[in-house]
């Protein structure tokens, strides 16, 4: 099918200023052909502006946008090989479902027979064949979204832009739509660029994620890389939950580092090479699911170990969540899978317990740059 092309979409030094406000600040990015790429960030981080520049609704203040080797920086939206699914869906309220879907091809002045055939294909794809003559007001939110999707796909764009595609759907429909989108993407081989503020949405959908903050990319990588090896505190905090320990570096060697943490009241080690120096402050973090909880002292002395008291616990069926108060007063979060069904819960409220994790689960966080 399509050849791998790592820089199918290429952004070079893209900036966008609105007056004094810098919405997007000198961003470079390559997106490969057929990728499902997510731009993840909070509101006002510049992700929507970036998407609108890809669509052609905004012109960059500086920089260059290439799609499939063609410079489209100043090309108007109606001449770009790009279509967009809007967050509001923007389904035309005065047109029937089929007229909405046909709109793009009509504007291309495609032959009527071809339009009819492609509309049928699209209705099939999004399973709306029975609704073709309905007006948008007669459709549910999820159905309107499928109309928007079909309408954006009918011209077979090289790139499909999706603005918060799942934000307005309820939980059940979200999961369904999520997989539907992935299937469609897989089937058509179109490059998807998704903008979202929802880290779970980004994690499950994407082949790669860019975490955006204040107009810049903090980290670009596969979902797993971003989750397991966040490059700084913001990313670590934004994606999932995390426990952080402040401290002073006591040892650095080729295998790892150690800090003496007052938060934890003990020494914490982490593997790998890090840009830190002895005597300087540093932060080590760990994800809640990497922490083990137990009544007995862990036997492996290389583990990071601390004593604590269970302050609170929540049984979620598949998981149990614990809030553990350390001797220093710091609260850490621990989650544990409930692998076995047992008559009594192993750890209870106010139990004195041990928490521990392996040094290779420790994440060293540098300050935000």
């Amino acid at each position: 099918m399509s050849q791998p092309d790592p820089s199918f979409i290429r952004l070079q030094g893209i900036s966008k200023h609105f007056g004094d406000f810098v919405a997007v600040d000198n961003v470079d990015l390559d997106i490969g052909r057929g990728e499902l790429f997510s731009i993840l960030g909070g509101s006002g981080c510049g992700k929507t502006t970036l998407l609108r520049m890809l669509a052609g609704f905004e012109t960059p203040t500086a920089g260059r946008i290439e799609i499939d080797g063609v410079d489209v920086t100043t090309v108007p939206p109606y001449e770009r090989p790009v279509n967009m699914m809007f967050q509001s869906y923007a389904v035309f309220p005065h047109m029937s479902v089929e007229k909405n879907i046909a709109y793009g091809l009509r504007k291309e002045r495609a032959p009527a027979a071809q339009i009819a055939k492609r509309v049928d294909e699209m209705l099939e794809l999004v399973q709306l064949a029975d609704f073709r003559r309905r007006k948008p007001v007669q459709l549910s939110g999820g159905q309107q979204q499928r109309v928007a999707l079909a309408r954006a796909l009918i011209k077979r764009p090289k790139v499909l832009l999706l603005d918060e595609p799942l934000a307005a759907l309820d939980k059940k429909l979200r999961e369904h739509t999520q997989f539907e989108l992935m299937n469609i993407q897989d089937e058509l081989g179109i490059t998807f660029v998704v903008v979202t503020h929802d880290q779970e949405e980004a994690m499950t959908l994407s082949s790669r994620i860019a975490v955006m903050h204040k107009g810049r990319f903090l980290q670009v990588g596969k979902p797993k890389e971003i989750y397991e090896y966040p490059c700084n505190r913001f990313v670590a905090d934004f994606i999932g939950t995390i426990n952080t320990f402040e401290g002073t570096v006591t040892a650095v060697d080729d295998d790892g580092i150690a800090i003496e943490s007052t938060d934890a009241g003990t020494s914490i080690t982490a593997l790998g090479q890090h840009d830190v120096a002895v005597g300087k402050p540093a932060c080590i973090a760990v994800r809640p699911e990497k922490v083990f909880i137990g009544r007995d002292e862990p036997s492996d002395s290389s583990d990071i170990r601390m004593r604590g008291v269970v302050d609170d616990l929540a049984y979620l069926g598949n998981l149990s969540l614990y809030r553990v108060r350390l001797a220093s007063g710091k609260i850490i979060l621990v989650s544990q899978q409930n692998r076995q069904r047992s008559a009594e819960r192993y750890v209870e409220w106010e139990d004195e317990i041990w928490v521990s994790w392996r040094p290779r689960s420790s994440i060293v966080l540098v300050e935000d740059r």
Partner: protein
Amino acid sequence: MELLGRRDLWWRRLIVAIPYLWLFVFFALPFLIILKISLADPIMARPPFSETVSADNFIFLLNDKLYAITYLRSIVLAAAATVLCLLLGFPMAYGIARSTPAVRSFLLLLIVLPFWISFLLRVYAWMGLLNNYGVVNNLLIWLGVIDQPLQIMYTDFAIFLGLTYSYLPFMILPLYATLERMDLDLVDAALDLGASRTAAFWDITWPLARPGVVAGCLLVFIPAMGEYVIPYLLGGPEAMMIGRVLFDEFYFNRDWPLASAVAIMLLVILVVPIVFLQRNQAREAESAA
């Protein structure tokens, strides 16, 4: 429907009855009185109409060309003013609807600001602008565009300007209300799907703004049609509009029956297209639902 108790039902009926009662007392009843007078003959008495019933006044109206011409002139002038109001009002309403909230409320204030001054005074001010030694003529002479003052005052053109000026806000406000509600993403979506800016306007903005266009046109056309003050002050002595004829028949000729017949005819001319438009809209709304 036993959910509603008897008392609730009575309350409901009472509340619905109030506007109907209002319309009956202040519209239907006077209308019936006017209808009755229009069928009488003028006599020198008080009140100045007979108790007889005949269609003489309507026959007279239909046979006298002067009235037909006056109705026609009123329709043409009102329609021309409506079209110009739409051409001026649409971009203005669009601009207001798309400006930032702070600017928007300021612009809306500017639109309604003229209402602070009496309508009569504003029309008088146009006399000062348009007469032979008025602001417009002086400016054109000073610029060297013309040597002799143009006769603008006391022409149909002056009426046309006066109508357009006076009723422009009634076009802008309903248009603004529909355009402001419109989702901007719709236009972006059309552009994204390959429509040029012009195509996006005709495919998306215009059809969605149509309820506002219809409301604005009715709000301008109906009162402009029966306008009395503007043709009286800005129009020439023979540039009659139907509102002025109505007034003259009633006030100077004291021919109440004929004046009533003129009013009934005016109502018929206005009501027929409105009913047609409303049925059209109702049908559209039905097909959408």
